[in-house]
């Protein structure tokens, strides 16, 4: 395949770059849009002699990768934007201590929160922690830049951050792969030298004064290299009317917008791949071209602010500039960008008319839009155990009748903030935060709060960040209930293994760490139920709510409908008996479709009765327990 152009996903290009750089160890925690990087490396581990793991959380994954670097092996760590927050304490200290073999942290931001509950910006960690930052702007560059990042890391002796975004990580484009070095490498951690000896001494960010100065010298060396980096390029006339400075996938949006506006002869584009620290000489050369500058980037105006600081510092040489960007509102301050938003900004500055399609067609489309383009609310999949779990929790909270509520956190079950999970989650923040907040709410009885509180967590999330919160609740005797929605995998991001699974990222057998045993060992009362057994689950949940003495755990264990073991199989053949279904005449008021709301059910207009959509139904059979008439018939062995 070497030398032949392929269409690769951005994350695959990053993987390829790492392989070409001879990466030996990779670790991460799953999180959209970053997950495929570690997944792909795990897939390549056998062939190329790598060690790859899904770590318990991002901080540990960074520590695992750093160990390899200190032992002389190139290593990579990958995570989504907010994962960097989790890893940041170690990151701060690692930045101070430096690394030995090349080490790259790939962090994938999610502008527009396409698969997140935040629009977090991770680039500022580079400035805050004084580390070099690279941002690839297309697929080939994603590969080439990743490879170079390892060389840069070794050149300066510190970690290099490489930031991708959803529209690059999860998009695909042309990449010409290069050669991958043969497997091999000897690991050894040299620690007998002086603490000031970066190659041979013990490794720490202390002595701080000394190490901090060295760290800043490393960064200066990086800037020198950035001045001549091929990843920074200029396209456009010698003296344009407007200079666009951009980075990352926005470069393709700018290219598209200028083509549509036919304005390539009026606008110059400085695409930066090395976005922290900015190379001042390069910047000065291009800022001198014209008086107007538009900075195009996603999330916070990181590049814009840094360019403005640089421009102020060189104001004597380049004169005053007029800046456009997010800060004065030419570009939106929230949400992801796209060619149309960039085009609108450019058309405004250049005073160019633009019409994407004939006005008559546009009017027609706008007229038709509201009639038929209703939103498709996200929903739990057909056969999803979470729907059953939240159904029982909803009924239990209603029976308890004290306005109890559930604190949520991050996973597929975050959808329970929406109608699909009956809007049950009343707080939703970070991994593990539901349990931590419930631990806090539980203490407020002394201030007159009489609402019972529950938290939900997935199995992967339990290991990632719930354990400390649960220990806190048990130790502080907080009357909260933790419901672990154990669907036996990291379902949201594609079934990566976690400490509870019987195989690791490399497919090797590993001892599963039992959630139930952990909870019991902490002294928490533990109940285990199958969420598909609605009665038992509801009874267990009612019991938890009634007992306000201490922290308790309910584990609801049932395989995800999309899990490799379950997918494509139907445990039950499900049908509606039209004789038994009373339809619109039943007092149930369409309980199965209107309230339970599984996508596998439908209400037939003609007959006024329920029906199973056999294409969508996953055969979990839970709806049979919901129907008050027993009209939904399940039979095994489908």
């Amino acid at each position, binding site marked *: 395949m070497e030398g032949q152009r392929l269409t690769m996903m951005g994350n695959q290009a990053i993987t390829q770059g790492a392989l070409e750089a001879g990466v030996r160890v990779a670790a991460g925690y799953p999180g959209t849009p970053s997950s495929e990087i570690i997944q792909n490396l795990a897939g390549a581990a056998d062939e190329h002699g790598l060690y790859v793991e899904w770590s318990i959380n991002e901080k540990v994954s960074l520590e695992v990768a750093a160990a390899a670097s200190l032992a002389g092996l190139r290593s990579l760590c990958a995570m989504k934007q907010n994962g960097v927050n989790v890893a940041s304490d170690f990151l701060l200290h690692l930045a101070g201590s430096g690394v030995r073999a090349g080490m790259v942290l790939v962090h994938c931001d999610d502008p527009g929160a396409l698969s997140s509950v935040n629009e977090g910006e991770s680039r500022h960690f580079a400035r805050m922690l004084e580390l070099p930052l690279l941002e690839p702007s297309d697929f080939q560059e994603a590969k080439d830049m990743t490879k170079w990042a390892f060389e840069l890391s070794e050149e300066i002796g510190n970690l290099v951050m490489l930031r991708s975004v959803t529209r690059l990580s*999860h998009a695909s484009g042309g990449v010409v792969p290069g050669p991958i070095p043969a497997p091999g490498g000897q690991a050894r951690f040299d620690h007998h030298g002086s603490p000031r000896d970066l190659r041979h001494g013990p490794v720490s960010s202390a002595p701080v004064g000394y190490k901090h100065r060295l760290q800043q010298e490393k960064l200066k060396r990086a800037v020198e290299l950035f001045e001549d980096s091929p990843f920074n390029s200029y396209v456009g006339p010698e003296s344009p009317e407007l200079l666009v400075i951009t980075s990352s996938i926005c470069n393709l949006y700018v290219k598209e917008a200028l083509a549509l506006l036919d304005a390539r002869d009026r606008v110059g584009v400085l695409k930066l791949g090395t976005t922290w620290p900015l190379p001042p000489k390069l910047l000065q050369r291009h800022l001198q071209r014209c008086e107007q500058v538009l900075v195009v980037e996603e999330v916070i105006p990181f590049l814009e602010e840094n360019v403005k600081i640089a421009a102020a510092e060189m104001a004597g040489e380049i004169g005053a500039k007029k800046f456009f960007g997010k800060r004065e509102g030419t570009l939106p301050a929230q949400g992801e960008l796209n060619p149309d938003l960039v085009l609108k900004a450019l058309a405004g500055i250049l005073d160019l008319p633009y019409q994407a399609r004939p006005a008559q067609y546009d009017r027609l489309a706008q007229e*038709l839009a509201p009639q*038929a*383009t*209703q939103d498709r609310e996200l929903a739990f999949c057909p056969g999803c155990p979470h729907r059953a779990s939240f159904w029982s929790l909803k009924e239990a909270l209603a029976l308890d009748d004290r306005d109890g509520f559930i604190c949520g956190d991050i996973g597929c079950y975050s959808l329970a903030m929406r109608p699909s999970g009956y809007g049950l989650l009343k707080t939703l923040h970070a991994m593990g935060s539901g349990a931590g907040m419930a631990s806090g709410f539980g203490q407020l009885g002394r201030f007159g709060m009489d609402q019972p509180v529950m938290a939900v967590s997935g199995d992967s999330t339990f290991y990632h960040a719930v354990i400390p919160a649960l220990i806190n609740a048990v130790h502080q005797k907080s009357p909260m209930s933790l419901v672990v929605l154990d669907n036996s995998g990291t379902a949201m991001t594609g079934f990566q293994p976690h400490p509870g699974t019987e195989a690791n990222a490399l497919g090797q057998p590993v001892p599963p760490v039992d959630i139930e045993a952990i909870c019991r060992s902490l002294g928490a009362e533990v109940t285990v139920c199958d969420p598909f057994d609605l009665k038992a689950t509801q009874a267990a949940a009612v019991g938890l709510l009634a007992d306000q003495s201490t922290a308790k755990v309910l584990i609801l264990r049932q395989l995800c409908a999309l899990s490799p073991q379950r997918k494509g199989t139907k445990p039950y053949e499900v049908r509606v008996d039209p004789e038994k279904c009373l339809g619109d005449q039943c007092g149930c008021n369409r309980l199965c479709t209107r309230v339970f709301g599984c996508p596998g059910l439908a209400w037939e207009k003609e007959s006024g009765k329920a029906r199973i959509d056999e294409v969508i139904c996953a055969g979990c059979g839970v709806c049979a327990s919901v129907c008050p008439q027993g009209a939904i018939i399940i039979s095994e062995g489908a």
Partner: protein
Amino acid sequence: MAAAKLMHDPYNLIITGVGGQGNVLASRMLGNVLTSQGLWVTIGETFGASQRGGSVMSHLRVSEQGSWSPQIPAGKAHMVLALEPLEALRVLVKYGNPRAKAIVNSRPILPVAAIAGRTSYPATEELEGMLAQLTAQRWSIPATDRAMKLGASIFANIIMIGALAATGDLPVSREAFEAELRRALGHAKVAVNLEAYDLGVAMVGQ
């Protein structure tokens, strides 16, 4: 391999459907087939939470020159390959233009709000009428129904690719597709998938 000539450069194709319909698989296979013809293909996708019953789009930009934005600009789709009719309308409202074509799988998937009775799904004729107004050329095909006869609804994707090939808009030859099937799925599944492809071709007609 010399690049095949394109009627537009970049040629903008949107594959749309509902999470779980296998949209991503279809766009990847099509992308690889076109890449094997020497073309540049840029594919924009989203997945993760957005797959859970939500609308899912893949944007394919096919070019002889290089990578393009993974998001197609508004009003610039040349072809919409829709696995679900309401999704065809959604895409055309934003990305359509008087020259746009569409191949539409006729089987609806009701949004959960419609199942719950909070909204209503438009009647077939009404939806067909709206699609007709927004396209220059349109094929409505019962891809899911035929796929079920082949054994699984997921073959609808392959039927749709066959239908696209039959329009002649893009160089998706049977040979190149067969090679991609072999690469992506292994030998065992080639025959049934080729059968699906041929069904799609026949539905649009040469």
